């Protein structure tokens, strides 16, 4: 069906271009080549049609959609997590609250909402590196870290993190020594976990330009040797 629709639009656009050419015979051929309008992709047409329908029914406001997009492009993202982590570096009491009651501590910074209701924060130490994965549906704490990157939702990351965590980390440029272990917790938990590095690096300030807070999972899996992982890293 979509092929038919696309074919119809292509034909229509070509016909319009042809009609215009008849009326503008004095226009040279090179310019005519630029008169054709590209037909949007099927998915773009589908989304536009859906939005138009919902607007027509009074269910969504285009200006509201613009505001949502602006929020996720410019106001929500890893920068929020970085600010939380940076405060934890500088404020031991806050760090304790963050590790024991993440939702409330993060709300102190003004972040919370959908997909951020059940967060847990874990700490990387010199001996333990937390690698967070959601092997199911790749949920993510949107209010704190923004929308997840594509790799986090991808099949390779979700599958291999469980059986080859060191290999996965290596692909991200993180090489763990043999004395490191990775943390565990195989229970399905409807929550988001994110981890942070203990201690700031040179040049990082409390406003946080770094954001070691990075990975979350809706099933909150943390690994330590056994379990489904089946081996020590």
């Amino acid at each position, binding site marked *: 069906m979509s092929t038919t629709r696309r074919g119809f639009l292509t034909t229509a656009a070509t016909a319009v271009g042809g009609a215009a050419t008849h009326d503008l015979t004095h226009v040279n051929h090179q310019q005519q080549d630029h008169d054709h309008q590209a037909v949007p992709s099927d998915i773009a047409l589908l*989304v536009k049609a*859906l939005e138009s329908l919902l607007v027509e029914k009074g269910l969504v406001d285009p200006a509201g959609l613009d505001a949502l997009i602006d929020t996720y492009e410019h106001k929500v993202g890893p920068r929020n997590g970085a600010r939380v982590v940076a405060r934890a570096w500088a404020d031991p009491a806050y760090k304790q609250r963050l590790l024991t009651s993440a939702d409330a501590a993060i709300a102190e910074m003004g972040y919370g909402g959908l997909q951020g209701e059940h967060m847990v924060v874990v700490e990387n130490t010199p001996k333990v590196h937390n690698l967070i994965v959601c*092997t199911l549906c790749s949920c993510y704490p949107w209010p704190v870290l*923004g*929308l997840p990157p594509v790799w986090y939702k*991808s099949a390779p990351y979700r599958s*291999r993190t469980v059986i080859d965590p060191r290999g996965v980390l290596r*692909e991200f440029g993180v090489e763990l020594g043999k004395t490191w272990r990775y943390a565990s917790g195989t229970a399905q938990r409807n929550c988001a976990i994110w981890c942070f590095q203990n201690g700031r690096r040179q040049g990082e300030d409390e406003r946080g330009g770094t954001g070691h807070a990075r990975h979350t999972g809706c099933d909150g899996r943390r690994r330590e040797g056994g379990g489904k992982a089946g081996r020590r890293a």
Partner: protein
Amino acid sequence: MNGVQDMGGMHGMGPIQLEKDEPVFHAPWEARAYATTRAMGAWR
């Protein structure tokens, strides 16, 4: 959980494809689709 939707430990998925400087949305329609979904969520 033991089902096809749990991808943990599966083989054959290949390397992780990292995208440098990944944008929040890869195309305008992605942004519109996401915003529309979120906005409609308010009606649930």
